[in-house]
């Protein structure tokens, strides 16, 4: 009973927070609601025994990406934003499209059949600690994708500098 109550709290608060993120007029408010949302997602990860990912979620998303968003919001004119129209004129079509995709997802959800369970039971992870277990999988089985990820980050660094620097 208690885990279900816990999940219910997280689900309701997270849906409310994501609605707040997309409807607020002031982008700074949106970013701050998103910060609270990311903390809730980290809590949900802890609930699912993924403590390394919870830490990464807080450090990387809340600490780095949202600060980047705040920096960019500082550069543009908020006064004009506060008086401008928030939504495009055809917004009911967008909402209807979203709801229809959601219905499709919920109808197909009853057909989920999960595969056979793997070897990493909670006891096995507890015996060798979560970060060590995830590191083993990451650096052996997923070594090549890991290298590609580092290349993507390098391209992002170079691309961001090239895009944002002054011409001339």
């Amino acid at each position, binding site marked *: 009973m208690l885990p279900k109550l816990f*999940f219910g709290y*997280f*689900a309701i608060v*997270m*849906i409310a927070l*994501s*609605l707040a*993120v*997309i409807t607020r007029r002031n*982008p700074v408010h*949106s*970013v701050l609601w998103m910060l609270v949302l990311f903390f809730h*997602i980290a809590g*949900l990860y802890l609930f*699912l025994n*993924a403590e390394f*990912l919870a830490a*990464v979620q807080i450090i*990387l*998303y809340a600490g*780095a*990406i949202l600060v*980047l*968003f705040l920096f*960019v919001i500082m550069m543009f*004119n908020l006064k004009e934003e506060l008086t*401008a*129209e*928030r*939504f*495009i004129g055809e*917004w009911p079509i*967008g*909402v209807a*499209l*979203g709801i229809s*995709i*959601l219905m499709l*997802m919920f109808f197909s*959800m009853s057909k*989920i059949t*999960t*595969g056979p*369970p*793997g070897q*990493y*039971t909670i006891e096995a992870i507890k015996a060798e600690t979560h970060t060590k277990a*995830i590191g083993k*999988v*990451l650096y052996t*089985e997923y070594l090549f994708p*890991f290298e590609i*990820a580092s290349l993507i*980050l390098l391209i*992002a660094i170079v*691309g*961001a*500098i090239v*895009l*944002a620097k002054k011409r001339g």
Partner: protein
Amino acid sequence: MVPLEWYIGLSAVIFIIGVAGFMIRKNIIIMLMSIELMLNAVNISLVAFSHYLQDLRGQVMVFFIITVAAAEAAIGLAILVSLFKNKAAVHTDEIIEMKG
């Protein structure tokens, strides 16, 4: 024990909120934040599957998605900065050079 379907449902709802936010907002910064919302929704479902199938591959996938999200945010915001330098516009209806 919370059923797996609840997590998938929560993930679907947050994903759709992100999709709707991307489609209906005018402000490009909010549209980028909607993309982050969608990526996070997918991450929730991957971690839930990883927990219920007792397999760590889902969490490794989340790790890669977070990497790509960071790269995407950096590039997207750099594009936004250069756009703002050239046009001083952040609303999608003010960017009409390509007559789309």
